C-alpha cells in the first residue's frame, strides 16, 4: 500500500516547472483549440491495471478552500472549475485512500506504473490518458499551480492521500499522478 516514492522532508525547494507546446493562432491551427474538440464532463473513471471502475461526481471546494472529494468513498470527484475531459488544461480528480474501516477507491493509486492508461468516459465519449509521473509530496508542498492553474498542456491529475495518519490533521502526504491525453 505504501507509495514507491518518498516525500522529501526538507525546506522549501523551488520546483522546476515544465512547459507545453504553445497554442499558435493561425487558420491551420485552430482545430487544436478545446472549443472545437470533443470535450465532456467525465462520468466514469477506468484504470484497468488497478481494477478501478468508478463513478465520477462533480465537486467544488470545501469549507477550508480545498478541492472537495465525494462523501461516497468509492466515487471520484471531478474539479468543476478545472478542465473538461479531453480539453486543454488540467482535469483534476480526487479519490479517497481509505474510509474509517479500510481501503477506498484510490487505495492502490500509488502502485500505478508509468505508461499505464487511465480512461475517462461519458456514454460513448472517451478520453484516454497515459501516466507520465507519480509524485508524493507533503500536503503543504503540493505544487498547487501545476494542478489547478491554467496550462497549455492536456493533463489529467489524480490525487489521493498517503503517509502517516494523524486523527487531527489527516494524512501527511498526497500522491499526485499526472497523465497526458493520448491524441487519436
Amino acid at each position, binding site marked *: 500500500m505504501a507509495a514507491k516514492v518518498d516525500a522529501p522532508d526538507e525546506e522549501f525547494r*523551488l520546483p522546476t516547472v515544465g512547459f507545453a507546446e504553445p497554442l499558435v493562432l493561425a487558420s491551420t491551427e485552430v482545430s487544436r483549440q478545446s472549443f472545437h474538440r470533443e470535450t465532456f464532463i467525465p462520468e466514469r473513471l477506468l484504470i484497468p491495471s488497478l481494477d478501478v471502475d468508478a463513478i465520477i461526481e462533480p465537486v467544488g471546494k470545501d469549507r477550508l478552500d480545498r*478541492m472537495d472529494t465525494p462523501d461516497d468513498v468509492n466515487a471520484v470527484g471531478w474539479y468543476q472549475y478545472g478542465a473538461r475531459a479531453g480539453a486543454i488544461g488540467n482535469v483534476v480528480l480526487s479519490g479517497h485512500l481509505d474510509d474509517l474501516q479500510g481501503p477506498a477507491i484510490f487505495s492502490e493509486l500509488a502502485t500505478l506504473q508509468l505508461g499505464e492508461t487511465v480512461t475517462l468516459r461519458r456514454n460513448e465519449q472517451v478520453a484516454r490518458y497515459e501516466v507520465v509521473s507519480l509524485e508524493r509530496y507533503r*500536503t503543504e508542498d503540493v505544487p498547487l499551480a501545476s494542478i489547478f492553474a491554467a496550462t497549455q498542456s492536456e493533463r489529467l491529475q489524480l490525487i489521493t492521500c498517503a503517509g502517516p495518519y494523524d486523527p487531527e490533521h489527516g494524512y501527511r502526504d498526497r500522491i499526485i499522478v499526472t497523465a497526458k491525453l493520448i491524441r487519436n
Partner: protein
Amino acid sequence: MKKLMSLLGTLALAFALVLPVSADGHDGDAMVRVLHASPDAPAVDVYVNGEVAVEGAEFKALTDYLTLPAGDYNVEIKPAGDAETVVVAADLSLEAGKFYTAAAIGQLENIEIAAMEDDSNFEDGKSKVRVAHFAPDAPAVDVAPKGGDPLFSNLEFKAVSDYGTLDAGTYDLEVRPAGATDVVKALDGVALEGGKNYTAFAIGLLEGEPAFEVLLAADGGEMAGAPETGQGGLAQPASMNWLLAAAVLGAAAAGFYVFRRKQQDA
C-alpha cells in the same frame, strides 16, 4: 483599451496584501509563469532568487504557472546551461492569490522583462481577452473582427491591453496596422470558452525569422488546497481497531451499568 500596462523591470505593487495562511498554505502563494518572446535570444534557463526554475525554454515557450510564496523575487534569465551569464534580470513583487506572466521580450541586444498580472476572476458565459504586443519590429496595431471596428486599438510594441469582455464563441479576427484596413495577420476561428480568460501574445518578427505569430493562452485558474482524501482506516493496525472497538464496547457496558444503577436507585 489601449492603456499601457507593460510594467517593465520592477513590478511595483504598492498594496501588498497580508492574508492569513490556510492549513495547506495556498492562500499565501502567488502564481507565476514565464514566456520566452525574444525572437533572436537562445534557449534560456530562468532563475528565481538564484535557483533554477525553468530549464531550456526556447522562443515561443510558455511555462505552466509556478507557485511561489508571496514576496519579492529576483528573476534572472541565463542562456540554457550557462549559469555564469545573466541575459537580463528583474525584481518582481508578487502578491498572494494573484497570477502573473513574466515575458522576456525584445531583440537580444535590447532584451527586457515585461511583467503583467493575469486576470483570474471568471465570468460565466463570457471570455475576458487581452492582447500583448511583443513583436519588436511590428508597428502599432489594432485587433478587430474581420472588417469590423477594433476591439483593441493602437497597441505598440511592449504594450499590453486591458482585458475586454466578449461573449463566449468563435471569432474571425485580424491584426491590422493601427488605423489602417490592410491585414497583418488573419486569425480565423479563434474559439473562446465561457468562464475563461485569455491573453493573445503577438510575437516574432514581421521581417525575418522567427515569423510573426499570435499565441493564445488561458490565464489564471481557480486555485484550491489539496483535497482531504482519507479517514485513517488503512493507517491503524487491525489490532488497534479491535482495541478501539473493545474500549467502545467497554464504555457502553459501563454506561449501561450506571444507567441500571440509577434506575434502581430511583
